[in-house]
């Protein structure tokens, strides 16, 4: 399947928590390519795409964090709203719904990180069929 790995870290709503995580990554020279924080008053989930996901997950677990790794779609489009819209429309037309999404710029392109709320496999197939550019892992 053409997907990439994302790590999710459970965050207590606690001062200094995010800084601890970032510092740990910085000290190991792990680069963050994209980050997203979902939160409530009580807790949050930090989602990360980094230059070395396995190393990052291991490091953060060892630090005592609850870390999980899962697969998400990474769709590369031109860096404009029209292309963004086209990609979402294509997925919607194929029957996919989205649990969460965040974006970042890489090599002059816009990358959409998408976790479908139904099947990841179906979403991946739909994206391929609609001719969207899926990124598989990072080199």
């Amino acid at each position: 399947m053409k997907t990439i790995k994302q790590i999710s870290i459970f965050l207590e709503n606690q001062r200094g928590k995010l800084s601890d995580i970032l510092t740990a990554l910085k000290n190991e020279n792990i680069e963050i390519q994209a980050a997203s924080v979902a939160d409530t008053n009580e807790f949050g989930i930090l989602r990360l795409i980094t230059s070395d996901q396995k190393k990052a997950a291991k490091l953060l677990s060892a630090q005592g964090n609850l870390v999980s790794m899962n697969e998400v779609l990474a769709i590369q489009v031109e860096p404009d709203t029209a292309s963004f819209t086209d990609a979402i429309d294509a997925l919607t037309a194929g029957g996919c719904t989205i649990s969460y999404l965040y974006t970042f710029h890489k090599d002059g392109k816009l990358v959409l990180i998408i976790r479908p709320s139904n099947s990841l496999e179906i979403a991946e197939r739909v994206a391929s069929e609609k001719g969207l550019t899926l990124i598989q892992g990072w080199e």
Partner: protein
Amino acid sequence: MNSKYWNEEIETMPRKQLEQFQVERLKKTVEIAMGSEFYAPKFKELGITPESIKSVEDIKRFPFTTKNDLRATYPFGIKSIPLEKVVRLHSSSGTTGNPTVILHSKKDLDEWADAMARSMYCIGLRNTDIIQNTSGYGMFTGGLGIQYAAERLGALTVPAGAGNSKRHVKFITDFGTTALHCIPSYATRLAAAFEEEGIDPRNTTVHTLIIGAEPHSEAQRKRIEEIWGAKAYNNFGMSEMCGPGVAIECQEQNGMHIWEDNYIVEILDPETLEPVPEGELGELVLTTLNREAMPLFRYRTRDLTRILPGDCPCGRTHKRLARFQGRSDDMMIVKGVNIYPIQIEKILMQFPELASDYLITIETVGDNDEMTVEAELAQATDDFSMLQNLTKEITRRLKDEILLTPRVKLVGKGVIPQSDGKAKRVNDLRNNH
């Protein structure tokens, strides 16, 4: 030895005979305690003499003894025999005021070892077992108390002591340990240490856990049994009575037999100090019948329990105590509602998404008391809505149990402070406390 009992005569003694046995021992204990500066004047005032004791009912004539008495007479004020006949002392930490000291003669240590060996035998441990003790060897009675008893049983005993889970994992693996003595919260922590080494605790040689010294729910026991693939037996002791070896569950796992040849058991209303109707919840009050250095009469344990009615299928005639419902001094009054930490624990343990650590914080916000329950998540997840629903569901179930709505906060590993001793469960930050 192939018997079902360590001491069949004592353990299965008919009730009438057992009570007569208690009367004889009570008389003897009074005689010893006449040598105590603390008890002698009280006995004189109340007309208590060995000859005046005719039945177990006479216990009602005795004065109560409390932890404060032990503190006020620190260190040796209650002793009944000269210090040269005392061979050991154990002491509790003095986090609130003076520590307390409990003295033991050679005979006391001997009887204590025998009682705890009886308890071990009762849950199926034999001299072929290898028993590893995770309690600290020091002032805490869970160390030496278990050590001497296991040796009395004839088991190979591993005095590994508290902390250092990695070392425990190595010992269990290398020695083929078959039984562990630990506090319930450590049972789960040690299991996690095995998992970190890539070993499923169910694949170890451990078949029995003796758990105690920390109140725990039936759900927590079940969880411990599941993760270890072993039987876990609730064991009760307290340093004032000797240490571990006061009461233990038999293999029926339905209530702890309290060794009544060694103690007179009363269940009293903590307010009125009158007996509660049989089978109802009250404070456990104990009188030692087989100790000489420092016998205690009507000692208020503060533990809340009840006597299970009826006979036990195991054949032992000694009364059974229900799982402790907390301590009378653990009770929190929040917004006028009486709440015990164990009620909250019972609910949290029903959620497989949670690990075993939790912390209840009560604080004053404006004019109101507010309760926050922090519960440790067992596993990481990317599923945000699952966590939100879990929070809601825990809140709802807690509200059903304690009748007020706490703020539920999920936390990751290591946020809740842990200690090698008893886990801290309640943090009361209210102005008036």
